[in-house]
């Protein structure tokens, strides 16, 4: 069964702290995507990881892909309130995306 597992499912963190969200996927795909969703809104693309060892950074977020253990990480550095949202990873399975259940991130002062 195709499965994408994220953990944690919920993350409450203080401003200024660092943390990592993990995404395990089940196929041999080497394409992995991260999305952000604000409450009541749709999904916005954050990162596109297209090969083993890919690393992308945007502001306080950095995503990486390691295809051997089928693991992608989303690292948050010095969190700020504006990063509060739900984050989804998705693996590419023959041109359709299979999504994880999401990680709801809440950053407090």
């Amino acid at each position, binding site marked *: 069964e195709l499965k994408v597992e994220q953990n944690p499912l919920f993350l409450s963190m203080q401003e200024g702290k660092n943390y990592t969200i993990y995404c395990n996927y089940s196929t041999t795909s080497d394409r992995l995507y991260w999305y952000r969703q604000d409450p009541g809104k*749709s*999904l*916005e693309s954050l990162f596109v990881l*297209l090969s083993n060892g890919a690393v992308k950074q945007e502001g306080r977020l950095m995503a990486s892909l390691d295809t051997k253990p089928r693991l992608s990480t989303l690292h948050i550095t010095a969190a700020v309130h504006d990063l509060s949202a739900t984050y989804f990873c998705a693996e590419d399975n023959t*041109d359709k*995306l299979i999504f994880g259940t*999401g990680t709801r991130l809440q950053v407090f002062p």
Partner: protein
Amino acid sequence: DVKVTQSSRYLVKRTGEKVFLECVQDMDHENMFWYRQDPGLGLRLIYFSYDVKMKEKGDIPEGYSVSREKKERFSLILESASTNQTSMYLCASSLLTGLNTEAFFGQGTRLTVV
């Protein structure tokens, strides 16, 4: 700027009604998708389409059908709406082939069936 547009943000329908959700993209993408999103369940794929008049079942197609008569438009049809179809529906599109098959999403339709 890439764009996927869903016809309604909010819809309220009665049980047993036939419901149409429309989605249009302007990126000339071959792939189009319908997902539903429910709390704690993430996004689940209902149907997708690789080309005009082509459709494939996703993980939860029961109670739904789709139509793709033109490349830019993909419709989701609830044949006889039921309360368990109350959900957020998200349309997306992507390129069929190529290294980057990143999906772009519409703004979502929150459907309530009463």
